[in-house]
């Protein structure tokens, strides 16, 4: 065996480490350890001069192992591995000791911190002694992309990727793409008509040669890894043949059954065979099985009689489609908080207490009132109150700010002013108009004569004391600064209900192996520096599924993720983990525990030898099998028992 020559580098990280740990002492200590040829400390190891110092030492002192004691491997392991590689070493000759997150940041006791830093360095020195070079391998990237969710986020990402001539599978669980944006009337701050700017993109998606739209579908299973994922998608039965349907709409006209419309947020009605809205993409209706007279009572089939194309198919069944893709973009959006949970707001009790999304439908020309802002009884409100922060910034529900409510409440105020003579009250806790041109919009509304009342709403009651929705409503609000209570009379109350993570976010997270934050939204790799990637390589999160945001931010994220995907496609290959697991066939008892546990399906059973074997191309080196093997037959490379034992001994001495 060649002589082991170790270089140890202790980083000050400015004062982050040096403020607590006596770095000079640690470095001096490191110099006394076995096989350590050089030990140095330096202000910022990750800086150019820091990196150069390591590179120079490797060459001049003939180092063959390098240890940097600094921050977490998550931050800088790639940096220092690269330095090693550039100086001619295998990247696995490197080891990082975390003396920041695990040490200086968690105590103020200088002596103990220094002692622990020394122990961590000792552990790394002992471990690195057993490091072995591993071969770096690459696999090709499949150029197809799967996008889950067809709101503006998914639509934008799909178009960007498909326009570069790469295939996209866009999976949307509703009968049509469009998401929440297609429900909106106008969009702040420019007030362009939401449908007018969105439908061109939707129809582009519908006809794009590089986009395969799988609407009314859901992803059930995802396996594989960056560059080659496999996804199983369930295409739910529409009971209408997509190939034959011409989208004439006759079936919807003739269907005799009506139910409340989800798209109109319960304010209007739709038929049992329906497209959610006229510009739906694809323009193919679905039969709502739960409410269909034929499915429930065995009689009707009116649509079938009138369909000239013969597209109605009551026998249709769910279909499972399998696709292979290299990258996945998650764009599953949000749902809104249900204000009826918070009974003080009177939602569900008073007819004229509605949510922001319901207001969007009320205002919209294709909506249930043809765009007239009116009360339940058809009369025009004399005063409307918009109540902010319903379920947001509220310790009982969501701590976070939903980011768009202030702005859409202002937008709603403007629309009310434009269409009626009504008084408008904004009942707010803070007005947050952070975006480009948003402050101008706010100033404009102040000039339009909107009344701004600062207060957290305590309750909404009926002016005449009756439970039933007769007459005016009274909103009681308390100023958070001086506890002053104000009462505002209104005919209509619009609740700005919080943006929250989708009900099924947990299942989606499971299927895709991504994480969620405590607030329910999907977790990005780094909140500042890597906001669209996730901890799972090749999977990205964009739009409101990652956190509340407006359309401009959603679109930027979607484009960012598309760029990431395209970058990987153009590179054409990804490096795969070299630190895989191997099974010692002499020790294997063939119990197959590892085979069933491996989350990547990397292990197979060799029948004639009655032992298991790891497929290195599939193995991600997670170590599950090595930990589980009762016979101790499995070694995870770079995490061998020798290495780990040496590390443990190092910490303990």
């Amino acid at each position, binding site marked *: 065996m060649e002589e082991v020559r170790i270089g140890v580098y202790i980083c000050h990280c400015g004062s982050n480490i040096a403020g607590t740990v006596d770095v000079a002492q640690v470095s001096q200590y490191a110099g006394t350890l076995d096989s350590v040829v050089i030990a140095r400390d330096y202000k910022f190891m990750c800086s150019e001069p820091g990196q150069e110092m390591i590179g120079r030492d490797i060459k001049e002192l003939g180092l063959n192992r390098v240890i940097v004691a600094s921050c977490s491997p998550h931050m800088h392991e790639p940096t220092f591995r690269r330095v090693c590689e550039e100086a001619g070493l295998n990247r696995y000759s490197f080891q990082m000791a975390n003396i920041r997150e695990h040490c200086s940041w968690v105590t103020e006791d200088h002596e103990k911190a220094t002692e622990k830093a020394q122990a961590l360095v000792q552990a790394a020195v002992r471990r690195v002694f057993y490091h072995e070079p591993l071969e770096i391998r690459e696999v090709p990237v499949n150029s197809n992309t799967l996008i889950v969710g067809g709101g503006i986020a998914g639509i934008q990402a799909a178009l960007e990727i498909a326009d570069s001539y790469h295939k996209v599978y866009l999976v949307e669980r509703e009968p049509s793409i469009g998401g929440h944006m297609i429900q909106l009337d106008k969009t702040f701050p420019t007030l362009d008509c939401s449908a007018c700017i969105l439908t061109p993109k939707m129809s582009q998606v519908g006809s794009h040669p590089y986009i395969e739209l799988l609407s009314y579908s859901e992803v059930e299973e995802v396996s594989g890894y960056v560059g080659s994922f496999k996804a199983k998608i369930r295409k739910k039965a529409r009971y209408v043949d997509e190939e034959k349907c011409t989208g004439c709409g006759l079936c919807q006209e003739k269907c005799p059954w009506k139910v409340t419309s989800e798209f109109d947020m319960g304010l209007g009605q739709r038929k049992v065979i329906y497209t959610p809205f006229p510009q739906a993409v694809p323009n193919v209706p679905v039969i709502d099985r739960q409410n269909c007279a034929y499915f429930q009572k065995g009689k009707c089939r009116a649509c079938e009689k009138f369909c000239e194309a013969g597209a109605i198919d009551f026998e249709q069944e769910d279909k499972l489609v399998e696709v292979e893709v290299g990258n996945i973009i998650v764009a599953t959006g949000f749902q809104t908080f249900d204000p009826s949970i918070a009974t003080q707001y009177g939602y569900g009790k008073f007819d004229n207490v509605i949510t922001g999304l319901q207001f969007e439908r009320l205002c919209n020309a294709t909506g249930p009132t043809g765009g007239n802002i009116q009360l339940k009884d058809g009369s025009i409100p004399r005063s409307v109150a918009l109540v902010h922060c319903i379920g947001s910034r509220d310790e009982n529900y969501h701590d976070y700010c939903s980011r768009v409510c202030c702005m859409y409440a202002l937008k709603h105020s403007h629309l009310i002013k434009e269409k009626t003579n009504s008084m408008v009250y904004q009942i707010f806790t803070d007005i947050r108009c952070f975006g480009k041109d948003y402050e101008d919009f706010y100033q404009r509304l102040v000039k339009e004569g909107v009344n701004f009342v600062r207060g957290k709403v305590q309750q909404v009651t009926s002016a005449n004391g009756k439970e039933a929705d007769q007459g005016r409503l009274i909103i009681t609000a308390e100023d958070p600064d001086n506890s002053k209570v104000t009462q505002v009379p209104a005919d209509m109350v619009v609740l700005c209900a919080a943006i929250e993570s989708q009900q099924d976010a947990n299942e989606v997270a*499971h299927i895709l192996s991504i994480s969620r934050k405590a607030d329910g939204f999907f977790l990005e790799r780094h909140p500042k520096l890597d906001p669209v990637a996730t901890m799972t390589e090749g999977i990205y999160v964009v739009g409101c599924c990652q956190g509340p945001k407006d359309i401009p931010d959603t679109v930027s994220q979607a484009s960012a993720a598309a760029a990431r995907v395209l970058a990987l496609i153009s590179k054409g290959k990804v490096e795969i983990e070299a630190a895989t697991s191997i099974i010692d066939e002499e020790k*294997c*008892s063939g*119990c197959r525990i590892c085979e069933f*546990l491996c989350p990547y399906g990397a292990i197979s059973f060799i029948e004639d030898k009655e032992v298991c074997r790891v497929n290195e191309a599939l193995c991600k080196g997670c170590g599950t099998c090595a930990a*589980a093997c*009762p*016979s*101790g037959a499995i070694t995870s490379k770079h995490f061998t*028992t020798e290495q780990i034992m040496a590390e443990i001994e190092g910490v303990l001495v």
Partner: protein
Amino acid sequence: MNLELTQQIRDQARGLLKSGTVKGVIGYERASDGLTARPFFAYELTGTDQLIFDETCSHNLVKYLLDKKGEKMAVVVKPCDSLAINLLLNEEQIKREMVFIIGVSCTGVVETAWNQKSQTLQARCQTCRLPKPVVYDFLAEQEPIRRLEGELYPDILEMEAKPIASRREFWHEQFGRCIRCYACRQICPGCYCPECFAEQLSPLWVGIRIALGENELWQTNRTLHLAGRCTGCNECERACPMDIPLSLLNRKLEKEMEELFSFRAGLTSEEQPPFATFRKEEKLGFEE
């Protein structure tokens, strides 16, 4: 000798050998003390007359199947032993089509020693709830005589009630006597690793000195490797020449597995033992 069961076993064994269905039958014969039983392998038709069954047939014969992987064998199993069959099927150590299971509806066995047998049932039989094997091809039946009720783990509850210090003292006394003969492991149907951790040298998981600390490490590890896998046949305790009450360790884990995971090893051959599964949704109290 239980004539009723013995006759059924002999008839079955004869039929199986005659038709060539199996190569041999693993059962019990009378030991040379003329009183107790010992394992017996019948390969010839004549041998089947030596097969017996009675309350001295304590051994779990399933372990022998591990040595007979290449040939189809019949094996006589009591209800408790049958759990080990499922264990080995689940862990892919034996193939279902390679065993013919002669189940016996047992009513309990007694403690035996050379030329001695006690009058009372073994402790494990006193808490046994299985009237017949959980898996079998043929069942040698008799009138079920007993229905048990009451506490399943009286011994463990008693142990748990003792203060830690006295439990430690108890176990130190017990482990102090272990001579590391590994008889417990050799006889255990669940111990079949080609190279046991106790004998691996690199790394040396547990020292081979016969000293309290290392004996203790050996025994706790042995027990833990059987968590959710021990089927309670108690052969280890029977085999232990130093009379170390291993059942107290094994049954403690059995009780924990039941309470934590509602799992009892060997009841089916399909269900993976909890420690051999990994579900992403399991949080085990973390991350909540």
